[in-house]
């Protein structure tokens, strides 16, 4: 656990963290990140969430993320939260926060499953902007939310955009299923965040996908950094593979938009 890996965290939120303002909350997150050796955080969604946010709501959440990352431009990246039920307004947010703003990625959550074509214009524009695309997914034994995507849904989307890298959030939670679901869809990447630190997840991800398609994330503040870092620190894989998962895979997905925006990282 003491090897000085370079670590970027794909999956961070401003909820579940003490602080009255977005800036205070990111300050708190970074205090813990420093204790755990994490250099950079990708932050998305605001201080209060809604499963199906309207345009005013997701604009407000994005404003909060913009405020937070403005305070720590060398430590935090912002992803814009969109809702595919509101395509024109999502488009406008994409322009405001990514094309004309500092954000570098897109977050899609549980308002609408991603298997239908309604989401395609958002994906196409995000791809034009080189934004990193993140879609939440779960395979829940006890049932998904109505608008909650599964990795199978994401595979359908990914097949329509075979040249666009897309991150499979949580690897479907039930990772034995999620990893199998996305294995053959080479433009899909596995996010390790936000499930219990069950032994074997990372070993199977590396075996089935290769470390080049696996990304460390925490899902803090609801999750600890510790339990999610343990999935990589504790895995029976090489240090080279750990470093790939801790930073290199994510960085490789971000380099195109870094180049567009002139970001050195």
């Amino acid at each position, binding site marked *: *656990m*003491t*090897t*000085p890996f*370079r670590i970027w965290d794909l999956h961070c939120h401003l909820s*579940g*963290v003490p602080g009255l303002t977005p800036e205070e909350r990111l300050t*708190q*997150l970074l205090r*813990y990140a*420093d*204790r*755990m*050796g994490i*250099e950079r955080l990708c932050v998305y969604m605001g201080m209060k969430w809604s499963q199906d946010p309207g345009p005013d709501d997701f604009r407000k959440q994005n404003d909060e993320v913009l405020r937070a990352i403005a305070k720590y431009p*060398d430590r935090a990246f912002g992803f814009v939260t969109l809702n595919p039920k509101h395509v024109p307004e999502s488009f406008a947010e994409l322009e405001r926060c990514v094309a004309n703003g500092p954000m570098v990625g897109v977050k899609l959550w549980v308002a609408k499953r991603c298997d239908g074509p309604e989401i395609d214009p958002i994906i196409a524009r995000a791809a034009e902007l080189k934004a990193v695309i993140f879609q939440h997914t*779960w395979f*829940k*034994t*006890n049932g998904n939310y109505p608008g909650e995507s599964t990795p199978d849904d994401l595979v359908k989307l990914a097949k329509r955009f075979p040249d666009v890298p897309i991150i499979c959030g949580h690897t479907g*939670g*039930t990772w*034995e299923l999620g990893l199998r679901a996305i294995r053959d869809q080479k433009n899909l990447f596995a996010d390790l965040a936000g*499930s*219990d*630190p*069950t*032994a*074997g997840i990372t070993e199977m991800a590396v075996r089935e996908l290769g470390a080049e398609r696996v990304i460390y994330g*925490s899902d*803090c*503040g*609801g*999750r*600890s*950094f*510790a*339990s999610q*870092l*343990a*999935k990589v*620190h*504790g*895995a*029976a894989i090489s240090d080279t593979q750990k470093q790939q998962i801790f930073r290199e895979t994510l960085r490789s997905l971000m380099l195109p938009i870094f180049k567009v925006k002139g970001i050195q990282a």
Partner: protein
Amino acid sequence: MNRRHFIQTTAALAAATAHAAPDEARIDVNFSTGSWPFRALPALDGGALRQRGITQAITGSLEAVLSRDIAGVNARLAAACAASGGMLLPVGSIHPGLPVWRDDVKRCRDQHGMKAVRLHPNYHGYTLSDPIFAEVLDTITQAGLAMQICAQMEDARTQHPLVQAAPVDLKPLPDLLASRPQARVMVLNANAAMITTSLRGCTSLWIDCAMIEGVGGLGNTLKSWPAGKLCLGTHAPVFYPESSLLKLQESDLSLAQTSAVTRDNARAFLGQATTLPGK
């Protein structure tokens, strides 16, 4: 921040906090042996734990969750732990739905020299409000043993669809323990919601940290839970043991809190201490 300084600082912090000093005991209260039917688990033994800075582990058997030959499970557990040179402390399992379950309590204490036993109510088909649980609690307490109750083995969302077990409803525990001051009870794998609702104020029992989540989770828990009643528990090998060890690093715990969580409280639970820190 200068990157080299950042890496040096955090690596030094990790080295300082993630490993126990040679003379410093670090006790894991939530370790298990045996196979798990739903997933191949890493082959962790006492040596593997010691490499991670754990000096002793209170050890149950995963076989006990579904096996009905509990006496056989407990005998195999005792043998495995005996071979560890004192590193693994066996806690047998008791299944009160089985015939002559009281014999298993006696065997655990008298034959295997165990100091505690472990229960899996949600896999063994009873609740804590059933009369049988109070009977088990009294039997175990009268035998001078401590009791671990496993609240859950894994996230209900990821369980095998044909073997779903909802987490144990812990709400009856505070009343049961209020009238049994001699009982030594520890709840394993309680999450933050259980601790702040069902177990709220029930500070005569111990909990472990394996499923306490949230950024800075241990520090946050200790704002409302006594430091004398929180223990290091890894839930290994189901979980990566690094998870709970890194939680100690993530929260800014005082030396006294760290000693309590990693060592003193486990000893108190086992009846090895005359004072209960933080009470």
